[in-house]
């Protein structure tokens, strides 16, 4: 409980730091800020004057920052310099895709990871175990852009008839929408799934070796399969819930890469495009939204953990048996 309160107390500070950093990015750009924001209209004094007046760039940094935060809290994240549309609208339209991808990616990773971990435990010491764990070790060392690119490569070689699978919006066709995200999610799952697999296998292995209730179950005559299914797995998977939550947050933050490769209309790709166009309001707004989600999600996971794991609540170390 105390830990939770400490974390909550740190939240405002974190939020301030994050927003300060995000806002401050604009000022890292070498050169005059007005010129930067003017973009292509860099030689047009009228446009530049408007920008300067609108954003009050002659005011002290902290005042500008406070103003920006105030507006952001009301949902106004400025105007995109390339498309002249409100940044908030642009992000909102795309956030759904990013979230969808992250959800799907996490789900598939958990499924793959748990299944693989289960198999590795079931056939401990045998070839399957070694193969799976080798994949797990290698899988964790693959950057997401590599796995995504290789998958695209694999598709183009092995299923050339598939053509370009473009994203289907969820509202139009939920199932098709999920299907269109299958490969991107898979590329994420290769890496995350490996991590979950190692987790499950590690926790399960530890339980097998050390837990008293496993010994008890065996002494009562339970077969290996039963021991595994009813005693080891539930306890090994329990902490996974929080890890999955954290991983989901991680995928949100890392969506940039996969969206770019698969040309998905997500918030991450929006940011990358904006980088190419020097559209700083969009960059700031996009980074802010995703980062905030990440921070809040992490906090949420921290709060849920005691609810999920009764051991933490009770304060003892009794496992379910």
């Amino acid at each position: 409980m105390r830990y939770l309160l400490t974390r909550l107390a740190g939240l405002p500070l974190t939020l301030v730091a994050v927003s300060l950093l995000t806002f401050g990015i604009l000022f890292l750009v070498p050169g005059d800020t007005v010129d930067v924001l003017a973009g292509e209209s860099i030689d047009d004094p009228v446009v530049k004057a408007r920008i300067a007046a609108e954003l009050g760039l002659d005011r002290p940094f902290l005042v500008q920052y406070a103003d920006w935060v105030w507006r952001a809290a009301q949902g106004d994240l400025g105007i995109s310099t390339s498309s002249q549309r409100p940044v908030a609208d642009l992000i909102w339209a795309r956030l759904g895709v990013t979230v969808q991808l992250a959800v799907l990616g996490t789900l598939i990773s958990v499924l793959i990871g748990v299944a693989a971990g289960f198999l590795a435990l079931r056939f401990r010491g045998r070839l399957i175990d070694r193969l799976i764990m080798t994949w797990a070790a290698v899988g964790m060392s693959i950057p997401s852009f590599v796995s995504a690119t290789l998958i695209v490569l694999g598709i183009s070689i092995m299923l050339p008839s598939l053509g370009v699978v473009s994203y289907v919006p969820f509202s139009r066709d939920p199932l098709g929408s999920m299907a269109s995200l299958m490969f991107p999610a898979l590329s994420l799952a290769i890496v995350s799934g490996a991590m979950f697999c190692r987790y499950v296998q590690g926790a399960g292995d530890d339980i097998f070796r050390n837990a008293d209730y496993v010994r008890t179950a065996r002494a009562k005559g339970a077969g290996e399969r039963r021991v595994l299914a009813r005693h080891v797995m539930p306890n090994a998977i329990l902490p996974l819930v929080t890890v999955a939550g954290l991983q989901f947050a991680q995928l949100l933050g890392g969506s940039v890469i996969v969206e770019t490769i698969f040309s998905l209309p997500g918030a991450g790709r929006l940011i990358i495009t904006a980088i190419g166009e020097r559209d700083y309001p969009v960059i700031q707004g996009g980074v802010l939204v995703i980062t905030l989600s990440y921070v809040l999600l992490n906090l949420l996971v921290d709060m849920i953990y005691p609810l999920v794991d009764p051991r933490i609540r009770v304060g003892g170390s009794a496992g379910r048996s």
Partner: protein
Amino acid sequence: MNQMAKPLRGLSAFSLPPLLWLGGSLALLLLAATVFAPLLSSTGAYMPSAAVLESPSWAHPLGTDSIGRDIMARVFIGLRSSFLIVGTSAALAVALGGVIGMLAAYFGGPVDWVMMRLVDIFLAVPTLLLAVAVLAAMGPSAIALTVVLVATFIPHASRVVRVAALQVTAQDYVASARVSGIPWYVIVGKHILPNVRGIVFVQMAVTMSYMLVIESSLSFLGLGVPPPAPSIGYIIAEGRQWMEIAPWPIISASSVIVLLILATTFIGQGLDQHWGNGNRVRRA
């Protein structure tokens, strides 16, 4: 007159764990390749030629790219720059983070609290995204990249070192030194630092493996070392255009970077095993 026990006293070669051997030899192999492969290449990494998008051949063991440059040379020069940037950044991040962690552990109290709150803030934010934003703003360059990488990983390193340093600080010989009136910088340097040496090296290897992922991802997005200098991520990005007819750039660059990441991961795990897992702090 050697005061300090020789650093290799506990490190007889034949007792090293297999992971360390595997990772170490792999890393050395790749390192050697980054030195020699470009020299052996016929046309070098920058020279365009008419031999466009060729498959591997004797002249070009890994093929050529869309403007006829030798892939082998490009890949290994790219790896070289990854090695250098990530190696430097990891060493710096762990050194600085380690100092912060040790000081936080030794002084405890409010110093520790403040430092760890700062660390918490850094750890709360998604690193890749912020790295992207910062580099986009600053303009990519080797220096900016190093700065961003170091800043991103200092917090984690300081956390890890702090844990080990706390264990050491609790030992009686530190209390004895305090009682004797030894100044804090001598205690930190002579008692705490040597006894967290193991952790520090493991952290460097682990940090390198994470940094390699981020560095290559950043260069994939065009935010790494700027062209024409080749970098692994950039080679893969370029290669995407023609990948149906000429997948060689992607395959070779991907394999090489994954191998390097694996190597550093194995080294980290091997070192960790060697210096004892639950037994991090050296006991007399």
